């Protein structure tokens, strides 16, 4: 479209100004702070980075972030896809979509309360008030401290909360894309004798690929910054630390701005590959138009 040279800036300008003030400037300032001491006064070179990559708690946080990225992303996207595709075939689609989406509408304070209650632990002698332990005891087992058993059970229990909250997001977007696929394509494949699995693999999946890529990268970017769930439920104790929570602690509990800034920079660097994927996709899209 032919427009005067300054017109695009009129449209994009207000958004860009907000972004510069709230995200760009603070990020640059943060990058600078990562080379300074706890009060941001004396230059310390790479000392904060050495801490970030050698400290035990930091290494635990790296491991847990990797676990989150793998398990959380895999389950939110694939469960979202399963819901999107299967729900299209039943008449009660709207009800189940609402049920799956409801956790998105709940604040972290609310969700934290809900799941602490599910994971509640009482000694074997007392009546269990947490659902999971009641089931375990009902089958004759010993009650488990779900949020304490390190390192796998408690981390996976936290990730389950995340999956419960975010599958609805993936479902909604994937479902929108799925409904956009012309039904004739699937009908044609069916007439040609393809079974449902083949249709899914050969017709649905390729057509959904761009959307799956969007949802996956969005989830990875989101989950790398995961904070609320850990903060509310364990505050990173019992080997459940993640990078964003560690950063919050350094900043607001320990008052070490240098280290907090360093963790933020490390997080940014981890997310760069996702940016590259998004950029590639954007360029492809441009090429198509």
């Amino acid at each position: 479209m032919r427009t005067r040279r300054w017109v695009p800036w009129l449209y994009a300008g207000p958004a860009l100004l907000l972004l510069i003030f709230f995200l760009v400037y603070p990020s640059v300032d943060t990058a600078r702070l990562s080379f300074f001491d706890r009060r941001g006064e004396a230059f310390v070179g790479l000392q904060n980075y050495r801490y970030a990559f050698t400290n035990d708690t930091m290494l635990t946080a790296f491991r847990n972030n990797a676990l989150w990225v793998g398990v959380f992303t895999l389950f939110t996207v694939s469960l979202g896809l399963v819901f999107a595709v299967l729900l299209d075939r039943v008449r009660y689609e709207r009800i189940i979509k609402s049920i799956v989406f409801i956790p998105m509408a709940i604040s972290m304070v609310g969700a934290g309360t809900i799941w602490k209650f599910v994971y509640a632990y009482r000694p074997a002698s007392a009546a269990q008030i947490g659902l999971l332990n009641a089931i375990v005891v009902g089958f004759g087992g010993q009650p488990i401290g779900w949020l304490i058993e390190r390192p796998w059970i408690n981390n996976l229990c936290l990730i389950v909360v995340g999956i419960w909250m975010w599958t609805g997001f993936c479902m909604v977007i994937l479902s929108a894309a799925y409904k956009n696929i012309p039904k004739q394509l699937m009908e044609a494949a069916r007439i040609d004798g393809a079974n449902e699995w083949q249709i899914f693999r050969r017709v649905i999946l390729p057509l959904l690929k761009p959307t799956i890529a969007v949802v996956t990268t969005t989830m990875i970017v989101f989950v790398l910054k995961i904070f609320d769930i850990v903060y509310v439920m364990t505050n990173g104790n019992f080997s459940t630390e993640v990078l964003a929570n560690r950063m919050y602690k350094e900043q607001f509990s320990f008052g070490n701005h240098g280290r907090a800034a360093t963790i933020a920079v490390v997080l940014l660097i981890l997310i760069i590959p996702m940016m590259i994927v998004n950029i590639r996709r954007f360029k492809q899209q441009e090429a198509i138009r």
Partner: protein
Amino acid sequence: MRRRTMGFLTRSPLHVVLIALALIWMLPTVGLLITSFRPPQDVGDTGWWTVLAHPFNFTQYTLANYKAVLFEEGMGRAFVNSLIITVPATLLPILLAAFAAYAFAWMEFPGRNLLFMIVVGLMVVPLQMTFIPILTIFAKIRVAGTFPAIWLAHAGYGMPLMVYLLHGFIAGLPRDLFDSAAIDGASSIKTFFRIVVPLSVPAIASVVIFQFLWVWNDLLVALIYLGGSPNVGPVTLRVANLVGSRGQQWEVLTAAAFVSMALPLVVFFSLQRYFVRGILAGSVKG
């Protein structure tokens, strides 16, 4: 054989799988809801599912928890505060994001692609790290603790995702529309309000939902920019304070959690038809 198996797998077990998954999804919330109606001593003694043995024995339920939470000093004020924060913090950035998405999708200007990538890339910035530099400025210009400060903050933080999602949709609109609008001599602002906005209603509605939920449920940003004052504090802050002061009193916490969930659920259910119709966010057309 394989075909029959597939047919079998996709029919009646389909319903079983879907309903089982839906039940699993609901269970934690149902437990919370039931607990919020139970008297304190019951909550501590037995699991919430024990009420299901006699679900219509109404003596085992009580409204006392809700009475305590609702008439707890400041909950009404907190609800009003949440509205004052959330409505502008949702509408303002969506208008600005739509303008920007339109420019990035359909206008030529130098550095467009690079700028768009930077905007999307900003999604990765961890919010916690922006607080100190911005608070320093806010304190200098004396806007810390005011509503406009938090409106702008939420607008800035939500912008990358909103521009990204709206761009995905707006870029997917047919080129012919814009060509014919240009031939008809429509100005860019006319094209925006007459073509882009009406056609993007599903995408805008879904972005409204996400931003509304995000702002309404936010605790951290409110805590940082508004401080802990009950005069301006939202519902989440009030509930968080209850968690702090009422520690292990599940019956109060569960009722409070439900009060905070009420409005987001209403918003979600009233706008959800746009979801069902399909929001086409991201590059569905890609």
